[in-house]
């Protein structure tokens, strides 16, 4: 089933690119069109493989994660990145660093544990902030509430 799903996902990916084609020069589409055509052909072959060799699962089973754990991880990362333009690097970083550290604890978090995680978050995020903004002169996203 993994091969069939994988093949269809790649085919949709090709289709999304295909409908975006809008070339203005003679050779602008030469390379991407060839790549898309070959990619579509290979994804059809992958689907055919999934249909013909049903005994082959097509899934990579190494390090498989539970849906709940995976959902939690994705939610935390997406929320962290989406909040970046609003909360900025420093505030958002400290907030989500602490949140991730607390949620990754296997035991029930106590007030003392949360304070410790917050302290580590301030130290790590703050150290990177100072190194990049004061030493390397790289500006980082600021709070814009």
């Amino acid at each position: 089933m993994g091969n069939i799903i994988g093949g269809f996902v790649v085919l949709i990916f090709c289709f999304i690119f295909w409908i975006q084609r809008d070339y203005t020069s003679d050779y602008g589409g030469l390379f991407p069109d060839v790549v898309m055509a070959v990619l579509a052909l290979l994804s059809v072959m992958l689907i055919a493989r999934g249909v013909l060799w049903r005994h082959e699962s097509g899934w990579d089973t190494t390090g498989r994660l539970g849906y709940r754990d995976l959902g939690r991880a994705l939610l935390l990362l997406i929320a962290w990145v989406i909040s970046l333009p609003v909360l900025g690097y420093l505030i958002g970083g400290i907030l989500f660093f602490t949140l991730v550290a607390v949620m990754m604890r296997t035991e029930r978090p106590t007030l003392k544990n949360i304070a410790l995680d917050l302290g580590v978050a301030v130290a790590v995020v703050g150290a990177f902030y100072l190194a990049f903004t004061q030493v390397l002169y790289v500006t980082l996203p600021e709070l814009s509430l």
Partner: protein
Amino acid sequence: MFEALGQGLLANLAPSMLLLVLIGTLSGMALGAMPGLSATMGVALLVPFTFAMDPTPGLVLLGAFYMGAIYGGAFTAILVNAPGTPSSIATALDGYPLTRQGRSEYAIVGATMGSFVGGIIGVVALIFLAPPLASFSLRFGPQEYFWVAMFGLTIIASLASGSLLKGLIGGLIGLLIATIGIAPVGGDVRFTFGDPMLQGGVPLVPALIGLFTVPEVIRLIALRTRDAQMADDNGKKAGLFGMVKDILGRPVNLLRSSLIGTAVGILPGAGGSVANLVAYNEAKRASKHPETFGKGEIDGVIASESANNGTVGGGFIPTLTLGVPGTPPDAIILGVLLLHGLRPGAELFETSGTLVYTFILALAVSAIMMVPVGLIAGRGLQRGVMALPVRYLAPSITVLSIIGAYAIRSSVFDVFIMLALGIVAYLLQRVGIGGAAIVLGLVLGSIAETGLVQGILTSSGADMPWTTFFTRPISLILIAMCLISAVWPMVQKRRARKNLPEAAPAVAADRAEND
């Protein structure tokens, strides 16, 4: 030449110069270790500091910094699967699996010794082979660059350990992503989905972080634990000298990879991002046990690191003799040379011989300094990362990834690209399409497209322009190399399968005798 070389050597032995090289190497290593801060960016940041300096110490500082930055990229590639620079992509392929096995210290030592040998061989080539190699590199036209990119893509045949079909699909996805933005020839704006931020294309470093690091962070946060143990914990710890001896006991791999790095460095525009992948592929192809590559094979780390540091010396060959920079940091250093009124060419070696050789030998001194500095700093970093509880490691990597993706263009959009590619890479991994093949396509896409279109345009007077890709002598050699590289893994697999039925009865017979 030898008189200027001697004077250069004496200048390098001065304590002030040694201190300068040490500072350059150390700061380069620190910068290279941070994902998102490339050697090019670091060298560019350092240029204003050298304005107030004399040309010799200024160039020495830049050269040492560059050498250190290329090496520093290995640390994060090995320890957290985040290649610090695109030159360390292949280092992560085996370096991180070694970390997961609790052998990160071994990987760090392998990277250090590989970088040292690569750096030295690149410098030796720069000293003795610069003029003939530089003129040969000028014979490479667009057709040859197209075939160089195709040669790089044949690595997919080696990387795709599970399924060649899925490996090819991954590579093509990378090639397609590489076409996003303004076309390298013709200037068409393609596949931007209406977003002007995509006109500049998908930036390589955020893509690298997304494809390699984000899936690992997802796994760490979801599992709340890690597979990697410190080497001390599982009783496999070997002494430092034992590890160094083991690495140096692989001279063929060290030499071959360093020479590949030097040769690729000479080609303008290719650089360490291509060299490390080509050397990795060749190391796997030449290995007696290719099946261990990608699962924690030290030869993979050695090949990648020898090659990328080999490009430092190699890249300076066309830079100093022809004024054609081999790699992007070379272009910046070329600018500094011109700023001081020094014009590249044969004349430079005659009129400013002492300066040129002081600079070249400073690269070698930097490569030598990388060994003690790298072994102390690199192993210290390794122990720090391994001792860090996983609940702090995962968010620390995320913080560094966000900065790395953001810093290139100071754009939050790049952080979104990193996360989106990371999630897509994780999901594609579930169906067996690995991130490494996608990265390969992404790195080589623009080189392949530029070569293809420019090759057709430059031969548009011919009846069939595309035939020029198959008739030029160097192209023919490259085509032969592509075919060998693509077919070799299949030959190896077939041989292994053939040997298996023969070996199995023999093993059974041995066992029966022993019983």
